[in-house]
């Protein structure tokens, strides 16, 4: 393939020529759209439509139950099924998902981490059953667990077991599916969590080093085969609105990776030292206000990773203009895809060699990022590598600090966000005026179909074969044998996603990440904070003890920052806060509140499942005869239109991103408790 890539002409520096000396254009990057929702059937339709519109690779979004290793009918899973991606319960679902899509011709990227091995096993099993050659499969399993611990939250097993899974997938893929990227080291989510360009580069490269060091230590590869393994490491990068800096960041990434591959791992072949990367451009900077402006932001961000030929991405997926409001509808995705097509096919971008080679500005900026990143990589190395830097909380707190600084800069107006802290006055957007308000909603009928499919799979399968396959998987896990073949057999035997993950939970245990809230303080001070604290003191005297507030996150979305900030703020204003963590069922939350004799429940939801969860929590409180005793408040990404429905269900207050003033939230919580006292007397 490399030989077909045109070279810069020696006669005319601005032209590209083929091997035979003919003028030529570069081939475009792979166009992807991140998608999947409701059910395997619905997502298959979406994929085929997108391919028909000129998309050239698939990028699959899985729903949270699939990502966290639960089948759709698990109590934790039910409200989340089909919400942020497609549910996959068994090989039967994968058959439906890829119906009429030729696997051998497809380049498939799966955003999957905790259950990455399972999804790859399903994909291989699918190829086998369809009579296609698994060795020809191309694509990527995201499989970067470090950033899950740091930012994204869909981990299942403890770090050692998770890293072993990644290493085993590299070992399997290199032998059996040579074109598959076993993992895709992600800097994407680090930027979304607040990372600066240098942090993004350093943390991602440190993660890659962590994976490769482990593989080298395991000793399956040496010499050339280890060099090939280094060559299989690929990256998934973010591109923000400061697009010149982002372009320099990409050059810094490439040059540092080359350096690491050469110096740390002794890779001689420059082809194997290439920094191969795909991109999803930034979502953090997309705004809810004047959402149409996001279209321009996405365009500029795309330029950052395409303009410079030497640092151009291999695959690009763009978010949709309304991402800050909801999941994209098919039309929104098509609009983003058209941007890529215009950029690659209408403009002259692909006709030139690198435009920035020799630019002193670009070279200097790139060097500056490299120097800062190199120092950070060394610091992490000194701590004992990326696993130690995660375990000690070093990386997490560095990200939290950067994020807080960003928020403060925007708050002070030092960083301009058009439509938010500048030029906020504008005409109403006609784009959000349609019947659906510019929002996507899940197809409930399709979700039900999926659940029936799961039932049918369990009914039809050979139970003996399924049991034996799970036993084999457990044995492989216990004996430190590669678990890929056992997982493929599980897939063929119609084991479900929940069963596969449960078997390994039994062996490895389940990881509970550090909450990161111990020892944190938000420094809530000032007159208004003092007033709230006094209000809580008065309440304490009336109650005979400090008011006890249970804070928890039901469902599977792991974005715990909001809940943690509320917990810390409540402590800082004088409440006793029972923080019960993430991934809770409504039953567990109500159980905690009842057992702890709580005065109030605060629930944080970002996955869009707030209505179902509120319904469930309120019903269970009634059942426990605590409906009146324990008021409930909700916080999270909750559309204006749903607030009334929540209030009707008995929720006392609803906080949305507009309520970013924590003191005000605490004041409102104290008020809810005063109202309760007034009712009681």
């Amino acid at each position: 393939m490399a030989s077909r890539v045109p070279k810069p002409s020696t006669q005319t520096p601005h032209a590209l020529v083929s091997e035979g000396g003919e003028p030529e254009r570069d081939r475009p990057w792979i166009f992807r759209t991140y998608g999947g929702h409701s059910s395997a059937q619905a997502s298959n339709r979406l994929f085929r439509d997108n391919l028909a519109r000129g998309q050239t690779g698939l990028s699959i979004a899985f729903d949270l139950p699939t990502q966290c290793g639960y089948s759709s009918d698990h109590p934790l899973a039910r409200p989340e099924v089909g919400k942020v991606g497609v549910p996959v319960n068994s090989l039967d679902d994968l058959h439906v998902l890829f119906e009429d899509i030729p696997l051998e011709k497809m380049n498939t990227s799966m955003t999957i981490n905790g259950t990455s091995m399972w999804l790859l096993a399903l994909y291989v099993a699918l190829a086998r059953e369809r009579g296609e050659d698994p060795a020809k499969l191309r694509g990527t399993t995201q499989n970067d667990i470090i950033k899950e611990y740091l930012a994204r939250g869909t981990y299942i097993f403890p770090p050692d077991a998770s890293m072993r899974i990644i290493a085993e997938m590299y070992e399997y893929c290199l032998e059996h599916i040579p074109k598959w990227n076993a993992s895709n080291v992600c800097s994407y989510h680090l930027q979304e969590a607040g990372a600066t360009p240098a942090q993004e580069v350093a943390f991602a490269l440190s993660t890659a080093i962590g994976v490769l060091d482990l593989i080298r230590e395991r000793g399956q590869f040496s010499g050339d085969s280890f060099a090939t393994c280094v060559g299989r490491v690929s990256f998934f990068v973010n591109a923000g609105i400061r697009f010149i800096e982002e372009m320099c960041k990409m050059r810094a990434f490439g040059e540092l990776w080359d350096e690491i591959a050469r110096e740390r791992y002794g890779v001689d072949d420059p082809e194997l030292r290439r920094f191969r990367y795909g991109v999803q451009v930034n979502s953090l900077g997309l705004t809810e206000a004047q959402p149409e402006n996001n279209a321009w932001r996405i365009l500029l961000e795309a330029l950052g990773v395409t303009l410079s030929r030497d640092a151009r991405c291999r695959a690009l997926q763009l978010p949709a203009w309304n991402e800050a409001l909801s999941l994209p509808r098919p039309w929104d995705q098509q609009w983003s895809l058209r941007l890529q097509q215009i950029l690659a096919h209408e403009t002259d971008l692909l006709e030139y060699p690198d435009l920035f080679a020799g630019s002193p500005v670009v070279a200097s900026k790139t060097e500056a990022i490299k120097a800062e990143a190199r120092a950070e990589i060394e610091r992490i190395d000194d701590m004992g590598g990326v696993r130690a830097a995660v375990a000690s909380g070093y990386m997490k707190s560095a990200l939290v600090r950067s994020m807080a600084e960003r928020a403060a800069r925007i708050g002070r107006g030092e960083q301009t966000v058009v439509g938010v802290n500048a030029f906020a006055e504008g005409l109403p957007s006609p784009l959000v005026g349609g019947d659906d308000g510019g929002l996507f909603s899940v197809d409930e009928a399709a979700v039900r179909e999926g659940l029936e499919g799961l039932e049918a799979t369990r009914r039809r399968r050979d139970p003996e074969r399924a049991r034996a396959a799970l036993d084999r998987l457990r044995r492989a896990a216990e004996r430190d044998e590669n678990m890929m073949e056992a997982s493929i057999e599980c897939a063929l035997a119609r084991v479900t996603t929940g069963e596969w993950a449960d078997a390994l939970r039994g062996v490895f245990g389940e990881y509970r990440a550090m909450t990161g809230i111990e020892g944190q303080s938000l420094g809530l001070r000032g007159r208004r904070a003092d007033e709230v604290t006094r209000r809580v003191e008065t309440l304490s005297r009336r109650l005979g003890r400090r008011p006890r507030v249970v804070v928890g996150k039901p469902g599977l979305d792991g974005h715990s920052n909001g809940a943690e900030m509320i917990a810390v703020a409540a402590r800082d204003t004088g409440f006793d806060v029972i923080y019960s963590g993430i991934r809770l069922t409504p039953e567990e939350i109500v159980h905690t509140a009842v057992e702890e004799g709580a005065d109030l429940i605060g629930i944080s939801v970002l996955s869009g499942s707030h209505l179902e969860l509120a319904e469930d929590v309120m019903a269970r409180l009634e059942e426990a005869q605590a409906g009146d005793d324990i008021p409930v408040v909700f916080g999270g990404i909750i559309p204006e239109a749903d607030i009334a429905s929540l209030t009707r269900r008995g929720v006392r207050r609803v906080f949305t991103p507009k309520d970013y003033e924590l003191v005000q939230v605490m004041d409102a919580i104290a008020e809810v408790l005063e109202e309760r006292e007034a009712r009681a007397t």
Partner: protein
Amino acid sequence: MQRGEQDLVEGAVALAKAPLGRLVSIFEDARPGAAAKRKRVHAALSAHPRRREASFIGVTGAPGSGKSSLVGELALRLAAADTDLAVAVLAVDPSSHRSGGALLGDRTRVRLPAGERRLFFRSQSSGLELGGLGRASFQVCRALRHLFDVVFVETVGIGQSEIEIRVLGDATLVVMPPLAGDHVQFMKAGLMEIPDVLAVHKSDQGEPAEVTYRTLKATLDLSHAGDGTPAPAVVKTSVETGAGLAELCAELRSRAERRRGSFADKEAYFFEGWIRGEFGRYGLRRLPAIGGTAAEFLAASGGFDDAQAAFARALLGDDAPGWSP
């Protein structure tokens, strides 16, 4: 006793969560008026035909030693091994000295099955008390005593006055993370008086755990040689691998049986503690004149709740406002 209180006691004895949760709240209530209610509920509990008699296991250890997750594991194991056994955990976390509020995060590390009646978990803030326990910890233990067979009381951490947990616990467990040699020397100075059992936790970490274990074992055997008291047991444990947990359960239960203290002694100690907290040294100086020793005064007053009211009356006069039980 009122109808509602009767139902509450019946529900709690049957280990239903909602009445249990409410009943414990009564024992945390610092309003003067709560004492009478507490007395009625406590009387009903201690006379109930299906009451239990708990042994108390105090658990302490430095922050980060993994004591919360270890206690959760132990509770699960005890309940699984004996289907009649009811186990409660009372976990105390520190309060902020600035706001007075507290972040009680132990539930993120201990997850007991919501549907199991025989397991109960309660978080508590330490308030501004100095020891490892909270203002209401002993009060709550008075209730849990009749409701459960085993009560784990997890303290804030190693502080200045672990003696409280030594008195409350029939057995005391100190949880230690694997430490470097120097640290072991440092830690053991303040620790040797407290434990019946020492768990060298996170033993899956290998060598450091081994070193800690050997150092502790050698020191403890030496310091207890010849003085007649049994040396503390030292057990290597890991929640990850399950190592040592069965042994630890057995040690704790047998030592709690052997050393089991009378509850009256505990009451006397914590009654004095209450006087000190509420009335300071002045209160303690007046105690002999008002009623002799704490134990004598408790016996003469007819129980903890009445003794508090009687003492406050004796000290402050009949109206006795401004104190909390």
